[in-house]
């Protein structure tokens, strides 16, 4: 375990990603202490350019709301949606993939056809439809993102399980009379987890992007300030007030970049043979 952290921290990209993520989390957690007022409140005249007033460093939007406060509150929404929807997708994808890989045959075929059914539908279109049908809210957004992002998890886990279940230690577990559930849980899944962890870190990034895209289209939770909503709202006035769209856009860019860097670092740390020197 300590070696894992050492490997992760030795990777410069992974380290930068972790630092940015830590800052983002700190902002999300402690933001409301710095900005006790609601981000929806009008605090100054509309279209105040950035860097003109010390109390409003990033300026105000078309209705006079503080852009910086919006970004701070948006971090909460983005991280929450990214994390919860990824966990939900893993909770669906891992069992389906594990069952398909371990039992194979008809069960495996049925589960994989079911998975492919979800994969053939364009994921963003499906997410839009789901959110529209369920009414836009934070819960429906999480559900929609989870539903469109579990199939790759299932496919990945299935592939890992397929190769692991022919290993001799799995056969030894069968021979000693252990139950299938126990074998999958104790013998197979722990050994299949490294690529899933890497995939999950990238899925958080994708989920943040999906949430932003939905909010951009006006399908976000109407009660929560989010980065996508801010970009969408500022879109019509982008020529007059570039800062309304650019700053939340940078926030999205940096947090997604950080998660991708972490994913890369995790990949190197969990599969040390791939990157270390030595033929």
């Amino acid at each position, binding site marked *: 375990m300590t070696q894992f952290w050492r490997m992760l921290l030795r990777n410069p990209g992974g380290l930068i990603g972790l630092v940015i993520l830590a800052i983002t989390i700190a902002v999300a957690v402690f933001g409301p202490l710095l900005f006790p007022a609601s981000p929806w409140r009008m605090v100054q005249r509309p279209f105040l350019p950035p860097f003109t007033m010390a109390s409003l460093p990033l300026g105000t939007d078309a209705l006079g709301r503080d852009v910086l406060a919006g970004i701070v509150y948006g971090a909460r929404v983005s991280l929450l949606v990214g994390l919860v929807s990824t966990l939900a997708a893993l909770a669906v994808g891992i069992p389906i993939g594990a069952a398909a890989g371990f039992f194979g045959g008809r069960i495996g075929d049925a589960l994989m056809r079911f998975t492919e059914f979800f994969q053939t539908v364009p994921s963003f279109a499906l997410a839009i439809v789901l959110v529209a049908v369920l009414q836009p809210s934070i819960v429906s957004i999480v559900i929609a993102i989870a539903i469109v992002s579990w199939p790759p998890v299932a496919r990945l886990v299935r592939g890992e399980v397929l190769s692991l279940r022919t*290993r*001799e*230690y799995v*056969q*030894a*577990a*069968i*021979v*000693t*009379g*252990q*139950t299938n559930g*126990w074998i999958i849980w*104790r*013998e197979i899944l*722990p*050994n299949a987890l490294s690529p899933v962890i890497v995939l999950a870190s990238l899925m958080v990034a994708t989920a943040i992007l999906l949430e932003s895209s939905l909010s951009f289209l006006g399908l976000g939770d109407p009660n929560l300030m989010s980065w996508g909503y801010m970009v969408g709202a500022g879109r019509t006035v982008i020529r007059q007030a570039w800062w309304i769209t650019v700053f939340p856009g940078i926030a999205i860019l940096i947090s997604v970049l950080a998660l991708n860097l972490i994913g890369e670092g995790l990949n190197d740390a969990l599969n040390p043979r791939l990157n270390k*020197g*030595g*033929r």
Partner: protein
Amino acid sequence: MPAETAVAIRDLKLALPPGGDRPFAVDDVSFDLTAGKILCVVGESGSGKSMCAHALMGLLPDNVVPQAGEIRFDGQNLLTLDQGAWRALRGRRIAMVFQEPMTALNPLMRIGNQIAEMFEAHGLLTPAERKQKTVGLLREVGLPDPERTIRAYPHQLSGGQRQRAMIAMALALEPAVLVADEPTTALDVTTQAQILKLIRDLQRRRNMAVMFITHDFGVVADIADRVVVLQHGKVVEQGGADDVLLRPQHPYTRALLAAVPTMQPPQRAPLLNRRKTVEVVGLDKTYVSDGGWFQPARSVRAANQVHFDILQGETLGLVGESGSGKSSVARLVMRLIEPDQGTVRLGDTDFTAIGGKALRQERRRIQMIFQDPFASLNPRRKVGNIITDGPIAHGVDPAAAWQRARDLLGLVGLNEGAMERFPHEFSGGQRQRIGIARALALDPEILVADEAVSALDVSVQAQVLNLLDDLKARLGLSMLFITHDLRVAAQICDRIAVMQRGIIVELKPAAALFSAPEHPYTRELFAAVPGQISSSRAA
């Protein structure tokens, strides 16, 4: 022929990256390769023998650095060459044959093109001449129908044919030195005998110096002119083949030679009035792989009316070459795969007729020891968990199971501290002992050992065989022992069944089988076992 020195290795020191189990992979090694002679480098795994070969080919991993010494060849020190000079040398003056011909050949390239690439890489000959040369080479290494074989892909050839193609490739530019790194280890014994003869013939005909790396003293006895014995990266003994094999000076060499099992089965007391613990009747298994639209489905009969029984306290050996179906039979008996037909009885229970919970309950009576000590233990579970998982699944109280596991570790010769450690902290032989402890944890009546000692070094192999024999006698176990190695089978089996293409062609008590093999296939197998001349000389 003049005995001129082709390569002189002097005081070679190769440094391993820090943090390994020793500072030098190869420490102060000196030996000569002589034109027209075969030098065998022998040692157990980790002795540094492959590192010597890789240094000679300039293929050292980049974290292994030559620290001292030199390799003299053609008047230059190979350790100081740059990549360009190496490229000119490799293949042309020094060539190599690898262990695993399937992975050493490019699977998507026709054999002929791969060999012609040797000429192409060195900018020699025209394409037409290359093709002509290639056909000649394939004929020289004894591949059937060379004109057609050059158009074959590697997967269309057998293991022995692939190794012949590799040798043809190595010989293409008439190198002065051939390095062969365990070239027959992945092959069946009859194929191995042919390849050894081929290397011997070619080397004489072309007056090449050959460095032959192996762990198998039988092979050494058949092929070597000179022998170098390596232990932990140091040369412990070198000399003429007869001197080293018949009059070994160093204790390590003697220990290694003593550990090689002989072809004479020891006297075994006959087993009388024993009950049958396993009865296998008419077992059939056919593997069918789907054909595509344009090719017919392929089917392989892995077991064809297999029929045998094992008495209580008896060891039945199942020998045969790869693909003979012996491992399939083991898995059928264990019910890891389902038979098409036939029954396996354990005592009074029809093991093939039950399923679900009843099957899981009955499984404790028959346990398996696996081939690969590195793949058969879950890398993420502690040894204690690995051993106790089975008993706990059968409802044994965890505390009692852990206590029993400690006793078992003592029984297989490991100490209790092993319980809290992970498998990667153990050597191959120790891991195999853990595997045995796991199998014994359920108090089985029958052990099935599938090539249980094949992946181990010879000295470790002897220890594990003794352990198995001892445990079997003490616990009154029956054993089904699957191996491709007739020497091992001779040492441990009461009776031996010889399998060929899914059929048991001969089943006899070990002594009778070795003194009078009847079936032609059995005789062929016996004749191909390497190192028989020298062991009869030594006797």
